[in-house]
């Protein structure tokens, strides 16, 4: 009995040591699990906040689009009509032909500017003829306004997929508008090339320039000053399009890809 006791005690000692170790490990594991739970919660909070911000941005963009639409209609229907009426009224004025021609020219230029502005705010061609003609028309207008830059457009306009709604087309149009605007403002480019492809599978736009190359970082996109980049980001999120920036030598290549819902499901 006496000889048995030490070995039993030894076992007890090992069990005790193990128990102490396990107890400490349990406390540490509890802290680790607690931290992981907290981190998960924090992640969920961040995601919720992000979703809320996205919804807010989308709501702002929708409101902006609505307001632009209202102003465009006002410009086209109200001011445009008034100017046309004014132009017609010149016929009855007791002035000579040179003065009438001068007045007519002045009013015609103003009508053109109002139309252009109205068109920029609400591209009616987008609604009437679709995305590709609207983008072509935009580039055409810009190439007339900005003579220092050489524009080129290559387009393939096949029938679109039914999931390419008006909102999607408008979103893509606005992104292209913003991208070209950015090139004209900052890139100091002399050439802008646009390749457009629309078909049943979706839309792919490749925009290249020969200016100062620029790839926006995540921070750039989030900066409150970079409103244009923010808009591009928000709009691409809204329509679930992907934008890829690539640095060229010289210039930048931007690829915008919007996949139709069926294509997305297939690739998934």
């Amino acid at each position, binding site marked *: 009995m006496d000889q048995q006791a*030490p*070995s039993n*005690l*030894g076992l007890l*000692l*090992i069990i*005790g*040591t193990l128990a*102490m*170790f396990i*107890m*400490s*490990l349990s*406390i*540490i594991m509890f*802290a*680790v699990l*607690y*931290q*992981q739970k*907290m*981190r998960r919660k*924090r992640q969920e909070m961040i995601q919720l906040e992000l979703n809320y911000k996205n919804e807010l941005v989308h709501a702002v963009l929708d409101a902006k689009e609505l307001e632009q639409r209202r102003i465009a209609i006002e410009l086209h229907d109200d001011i445009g009509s008034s100017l046309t009426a004014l132009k017609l009224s010149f016929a009855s004025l007791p002035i000579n032909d040179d003065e009438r021609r001068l007045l007519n020219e002045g009013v015609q230029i103003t009508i053109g500017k109002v139309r252009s502005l109205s068109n920029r705010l609400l591209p009616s061609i987008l609604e009437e003829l679709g995305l590709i003609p609207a983008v072509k028309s935009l580039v055409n207008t810009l190439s007339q306004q900005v003579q220092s830059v050489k524009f080129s457009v290559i387009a393939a306009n096949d029938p679109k997929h039914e999931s390419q709604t008006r909102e999607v087309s408008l979103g893509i149009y606005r992104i292209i508008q913003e991208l070209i605007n950015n090139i004209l403002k900052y890139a100091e480019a002399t050439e802008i090339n646009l390749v457009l492809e629309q078909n049943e599978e979706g839309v792919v736009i490749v925009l290249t320039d020969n200016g100062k190359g620029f790839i926006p970082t995540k921070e750039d996109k989030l900066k409150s000053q970079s409103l244009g980049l923010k808009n591009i980001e928000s709009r691409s999120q809204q329509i679930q399009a992907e934008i890829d920036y690539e640095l060229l030598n010289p210039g930048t290549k931007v690829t915008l890809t919007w996949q139709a819902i069926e294509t997305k499901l297939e690739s998934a």
Partner: protein
Amino acid sequence: MEGWEYVVFSSYIFPIGMGLALLIQKRLPFIGKILWVYMLFRLCVEIVSFILARNGINNLWLYRVYLYAELVFPSIFFFNQFSRKGNRLLLLIAFVLAITLTTLTNLFDNWLAHASVQTGIAFVYVAFIIISYFVEMFRMEKVFNPFKDVYFILGAVIFLGHSGSLIYDVLYNYLISGYFGSGILSILNKVNLSLIIFYNVLYSYALWISRHHPT
């Protein structure tokens, strides 16, 4: 047993070598420097203890001195982790109490005997600091990745280290006398030495994650 001891000495190469490299590169923050000094101190104690034992000189007094370091270093590591003044004061009081109790018991103890009571005091104090740190973490709702936080790793390793060897240290005199059986001391010695290697790897990891990133 000597083979094992050499392995244990070698395992100090990881934290000390890595700490030295980071120190030279000026990438060690304050906590990392203190941890590196702590590791260096531990290695010195191990070496001196080994040399003394090899020459037949009693080395148990060295463990008594070492236990003071076991009270000081965790206090330096975690003192700044407490945001409330009250908590810091409590920690200070606990530290003073632990030092006083260790000194008083040392005065009445035989310096050439194993420091069992002092080990218990050190364990209670370390457990108090680490658990207080965890409580502070819960209270402040600090959110971080525990596997990438130097304080958390350090706290866990120190706490595990003390808990794992507490019974062995407290009952060391009984183990030596063969009260628990003849083979048990050898088993526990091996386990303890293996755990030191494991802790050293974790200390190296703590040093690695504490480093400054080059700018």
